[in-house]
């Protein structure tokens, strides 16, 4: 079930495994002084994102930072070291009927290997983003070390806190370019006691979007609503049993609450999954990226809700025109889509499809390349960053990593 992990592109000149924050600070002070590049590293799950850092570099691994700093189930908060994996954290909080709603099935998805540091650095999310938002909405504190070895902190242990700058927001999604995260605190949520998943199949995208729109106009509040392109369904299930679009809706609650979803969907739902079937269906989706063939070019598109259909159509057209296949899944109600172009032996066709997608997608949409053969990375902008924001990003980079040693070249230069 668990796919092979993506590792560092090049062998590090040295590997450092600090036992705590002060050791990490000491290492970074040294590296900063000698302008030695540093690649912060958790499980290595996301190291393929961005440009490969140029050797020589020191790999700074979080594998010894796995402590539980505190966990009081009554407060629904937990603080852990950056090296703990999502799977380990889940095992801690599950017995108390709680969860960190990033992955619904961290014990099955390869993403369960992601560390807390990696979760924050990459702003990783899955289908649960529909109900809970991204990790920015429930990370309540972070400790990190700046590029030049200063020990920094944002937030704390409590769920409401406006003391000082919100450094969690700055660090989340910064891909290890501003600091090395050493520990973090989270707000936990009650784990649903009963769930059901409704599977809807449609001949066309239009029908699928109509179901989404009706749901959004209703008072229903599912845990997840995922749209799945015909190509993605074929890929996930290993066979193209039908050519249609799918919508998977997962709801939680009592029998009466679940009945509301059943009534609302009516004939639109062709199957209802519970138990093992349900877990299997969602872990396939949570594993989508790692299940793709290695030559796939994957983009994460974020767009306003009303542009979701147009983005998916643009992707479909881009693939058709190039006679390659494609697969897309995503949170249709938050506008977070994952699109893979499968050019097979012609990866340049996939890159060309990304260009076409970007050109034809609405201007409000943003397409970040998550995966791409290394040889083609130089030919395309991996991140779509706007000049005004980029300037501020550089200013903050200078402030927190004055020697520019952290993940040099991965994100922006």
């Amino acid at each position, binding site marked *: 079930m668990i796919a092979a992990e993506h590792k560092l592109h090049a062998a590090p000149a040295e590997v450092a495994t600090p036992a705590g924050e002060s050791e990490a600070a000491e290492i970074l002070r040294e590296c900063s002084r000698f302008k030695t590049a540093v690649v912060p590293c958790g499980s290595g799950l996301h190291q393929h994102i961005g440009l490969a850092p140029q050797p020589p570099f020191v790999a700074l691994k979080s594998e010894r930072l796995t402590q539980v700093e505190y966990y*009081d189930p*009554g*407060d*629904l908060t937990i603080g852990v070291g950056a090296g703990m994996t999502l799977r380990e954290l889940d095992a801690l909080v599950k017995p108390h009927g709680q969860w960190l709603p990033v992955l619904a099935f961290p014990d099955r998805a390869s993403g369960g290997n992601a560390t807390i540091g990696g979760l924050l650095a990459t*702003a990783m999310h899955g289908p649960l*983003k529909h109900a809970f*938002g*991204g990790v*920015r909405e429930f990370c309540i504190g972070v400790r990190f070390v700046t590029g030049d070895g*200063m*020990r*920094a*902190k944002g937030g*704390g*242990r*409590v*769920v*409401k*806190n*406006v*003391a*000082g*700058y*919100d*450094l969690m*927001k*700055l660090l*989340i*999604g*910064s891909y290890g370019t501003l600091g090395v995260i050493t520990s973090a605190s989270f707000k936990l949520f*009650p*784990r649903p006691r009963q769930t059901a998943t409704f599977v809807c199949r449609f001949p066309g995208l239009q029908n699928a979007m109509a179901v989404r729109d009706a749901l*959004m106009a209703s*008072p229903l*509040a599912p845990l997840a609503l995922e749209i799945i392109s015909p190509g993605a369904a074929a890929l996930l299930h290993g066979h193209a049993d039908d050519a249609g679009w799918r919508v998977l809706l997962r709801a939680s*609650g*009592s029998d009466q*609450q679940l*009945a*509301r979803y059943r009534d609302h969907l009516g004939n639109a739902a062709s199957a209802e999954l519970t138990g093992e079937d349900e877990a299997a269906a969602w872990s396939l989706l949570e594993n989508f990226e790692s299940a793709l063939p290695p030559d796939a070019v994957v983009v994460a598109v974020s*767009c*306003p*809700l*009303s542009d979701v259909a147009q983005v998916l159509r643009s992707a479909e057209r881009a693939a058709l025109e190039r006679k390659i296949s494609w697969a897309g899944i995503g949170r249709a109600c938050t*506008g*977070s889509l994952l699109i893979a172009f499968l050019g097979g032996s012609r990866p340049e066709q996939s890159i060309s499809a990304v260009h076409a997608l970007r050109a034809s997608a609405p201007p*409000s*949409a*943003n397409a970040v390349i998550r995966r791409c053969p290394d040889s083609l990375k130089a030919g395309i902008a991996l*991140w779509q*960053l*706007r000049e*005004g*924001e*980029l*300037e*501020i990003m550089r200013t*903050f980079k200078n*402030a*927190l990593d004055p020697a520019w040693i952290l993940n040099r070249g991965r994100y922006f230069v």
Partner: protein
Amino acid sequence: MRLSAIRAKLTAICGSRAVLHSKEDLLLYEYDAGLARARPDFVVFPSTTEQVAAVVALASESGLPVVARGAGTGLSGGAIPRSGGIVLAFARMNRILEVDVANQRAVVQPGVVNLELSEHVRPLGFYFAPDPSSQKACTIGGNVAENSGGPHTLASGVTVNHVTGLEVVLADGRIVELGGKSSEAAGYDLTGFFVGSEGTLGITTKIMVKLTRVPEHVSTLLAIYNDVRDAGNTVVEITSAGITPAALEMMDGWTLRAVEAAAHAGYPQDAAAVLLIELEGLRETVDEQVLAVEAACARQNAREVRIAQNDAERQRLWYGRKNAFAAIGRISPSYYTQDGVIPRTRIPQTLEHIQQVAARYSLTIGNVFHAGDGNLHPLILFDDRSPAETEKSIQAGKEILQYCISVGGSLTGEHGVGIEKRDLMPMLFSDEELQVMRRLREALNPRGTLNPEKLIPGARTCMEIRTPQFPGVVS
């Protein structure tokens, strides 16, 4: 640059009817809802982003502080021009620019009043979730600067959870757009980082917010207790049962009696504490949760649980809570509202500690607060005509905060650091941690002109950024 030259430039940018400079006009802008006072040299009312940019650039060139002001309802001194300078008042930038129902977004100017946005979109079935107690007056620009909360942020989150994009004027007058209508943007989450930065990194001129669908069903309960500890334990019991109420508020007996005398909300006079619990969502969900909450209250010895039977009863229960602060104003010349946060399991012992502090300082301290997220609001009564008593209440507040921090909490949950808590920040952050925040501030605010002397202690003082020809500091 002389003040007269700056006045001429401000008038050229915004027009003579948009610049205040006489002492009697400026007096009104010495205040917000907190304790600090200081007089600006100018108050300017910009109408456009370009005017804001020109004023901010002028301030930067002349080394004059620039402080944004919404409705002046802040409690930590965020809008107080501590060392004089220009107050940018957003009263004229108060338009709702766009309501985009399909994308569940609105675009507003910073001077839009919080409640006005909710009222504007309610006919469409939406509202703006953050609801500070001052929502009838406070502006969304101020909410963004302070990352404001409110009673209903327990389930729905605070301001930062509802902002997806900003237009910001930087210290040198550059106008930048951060984020947008999408739920995430490429690059650093600058929008999230700007929210709550208290006007020290830039001035917000446009805000993209999420709109939240009005729930299908709402139920409001009042649980009445003879022992304040039982009320505190109920909070943990409810959340441990897997229920996240929309709001979970607590009032202690002293506050209840004060509120009842003024608001006649029907609160019991002889109780030690009440919990005001609101549940919302699908009808089926709410009905089940009401039963579970009632049972939790009963297990923790609630002597009575009242359930509002209709909207009028619901409004009445909330009326007392929302007007609690005004009610205290009737019985005390002044009061000081603290804003500590604790892990919610520590509520009973913290309330006990607060009463010990009250006894030690011979002060009356009431408690009305957001119990569900452990956000305390001790109300310290004092007479501001007595400097000794004012000092005593500030000391008592500090002791309470020290206790909050000792049990794992924070200095402020939703009011901000501002002037009030700037010098208390070392209780929570080490020198090194503060230095990192200072570096970030200086990266975008290199001359220290944006809301100086706030948020982070011990950085540049007013003397470094102001030349002595600008008098105006009154405290």
